[in-house]
């Protein structure tokens, strides 16, 4: 387990500040980072090292909390504590702001693009989740304002293939939303965590959702559609979601982020105890009661809280992480022998 996660390099991405989030572009060639210094930086490789290819310094008046690339890779969305979300269009190494989405009453905590590229979701401390639609002329329109959560919404993420949206909140729940007759509705509420849910990640098939929380556990939820073989009851035509696995006792502090590798199925976590952990599903585990084993545990991955972990979408085992210490680190993960 000692050598399963090896450091490839570190960069001082947001000096004298926190680095809050990372996003790889769909091609896996660029990494966007954002931070408390209100800047967004784009990193690329030059030989063996990572260099800063672009900086977006104008655009936000406060911390940039999350960034997300569009599925086509030509646009970058940034969510900020200044209550706005900016959409940047990439032109070689330059980024131009094409529009600023306003409407949230206070800090925007997350932004995510749907796999179709036509929809965008944002969420905020104002407890709401907004769904936006974008047309061919880069015009954005608000399609729905969802007030289902009772507290600060921390994260939104789209299903990898369906138009299904998930959100995580300070109210200890995860909610799922889908479109119904021109409007969006909350179709499921996942309860179980005992404290704030900080982040979410779907597995490559989209059948399972992983959530991580301030309660120091990771929960795996599975979707059971109506008429499922296992006899799980559903109300109406909406699938039911059940918690099929809880990973507890592995993290000593709040788990701030979770990432499910779309290539290998490995699950990485970012923790407030400065460590990065990787889990893999046991090969013969029962799909209805899966078991996961800890395959990597790197203490002191950073000198402060790890805020984000992100798997490269094209290169298996390449993981990026960032921290309150302002640094971004790159890691090579190799599944340990004999597992």
């Amino acid at each position, binding site marked *: 387990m000692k050598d399963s996660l090896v450091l490839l390099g570190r960069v001082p991405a947001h000096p004298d500040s926190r680095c809050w989030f990372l996003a790889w572009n769909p091609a896996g060639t660029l990494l966007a980072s954002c931070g408390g210094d209100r800047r967004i930086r784009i990193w690329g490789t030059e030989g063996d090292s990572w260099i800063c290819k672009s900086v977006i310094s104008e655009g936000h008046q406060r911390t940039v909390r999350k960034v997300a690339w569009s599925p086509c890779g030509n646009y970058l969305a940034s969510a900020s504590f200044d209550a706005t979300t900016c959409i940047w269009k990439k032109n070689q190494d330059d980024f131009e702001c094409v529009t600023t989405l*306003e*409407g949230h009453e206070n800090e925007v905590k997350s932004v995510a693009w749907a796999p179709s590229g036509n929809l965008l979701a944002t969420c905020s401390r104002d407890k*709401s989740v*907004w769904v936006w639609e974008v047309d061919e002329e880069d015009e954005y*329109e*608000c*399609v*729905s*304002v*969802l*007030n*289902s959560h009772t507290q600060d919404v921390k994260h939104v993420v789209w299903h990898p293939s369906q138009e299904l949206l998930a959100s995580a909140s300070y109210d200890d729940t995860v909610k799922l939303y889908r479109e119904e007759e*021109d*409007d969006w509705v909350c179709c499921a509420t996942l309860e179980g965590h005992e404290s704030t849910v900080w982040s979410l990640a779907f597995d490559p098939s989209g059948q399972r959702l992983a959530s991580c929380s301030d309660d120091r556990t990771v929960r795996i939820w599975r979707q059971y559609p109506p008429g499922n073989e296992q006899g799980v009851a559903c109300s109406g035509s909406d699938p039911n979601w059940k918690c099929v696995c809880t990973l507890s006792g592995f993290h000593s502090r709040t788990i701030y982020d979770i990432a499910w590798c779309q290539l290998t199925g490995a699950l990485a976590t970012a923790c407030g105890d400065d460590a990065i952990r990787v889990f893999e599903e046991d090969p013969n585990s029962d799909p209805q009661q899966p078991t996961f084993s800890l395959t990597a545990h790197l203490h002191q991955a950073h000198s402060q809280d790890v805020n984000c972990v992100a798997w490269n979408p094209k290169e298996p085992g390449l993981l990026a992480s960032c921290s309150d210490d302002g640094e971004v680190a790159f890691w090579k993960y190799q599944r340990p022998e004999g597992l």
Partner: protein
Amino acid sequence: MAGSQDMFDAIVMADERFHGEGYREGYEEGSSLGVMEGRQHGSLQGARIGSEIGCYQGFAFAWKCLLHSCTAEKDSRKMKVLESLIGMIQKFPYDDPTYDKLHEDLDKIRGKFKQFCSLLNVQPDFKISAEGSGLSF
């Protein structure tokens, strides 16, 4: 013999009897004070909700007049959302405070109103207080 038992009972049970009477009197008075306080509280809460929805309704009807000539394709979402908002406001059960989905429906109205403002590119600033609502742009 029975007579002297009653006499002792009257003395010995006096404490408990007065306690009981006092409790009943207090309970009745407390109940009626509680009903008054509840009524005041309900009245205040009700006024707030009514005032808020009233603002949205006025806003919606005003815009319905202003946009009445909008038939362009690109305005179709705006008009649909407006009609949906008006519909939700009209369907709201103003005379049933025990309606179990009251807060859920109120949240939906708020969400629809915010969406409408976003489509209009208008940011109204509401001040909703017990004394009445103000609307500033």
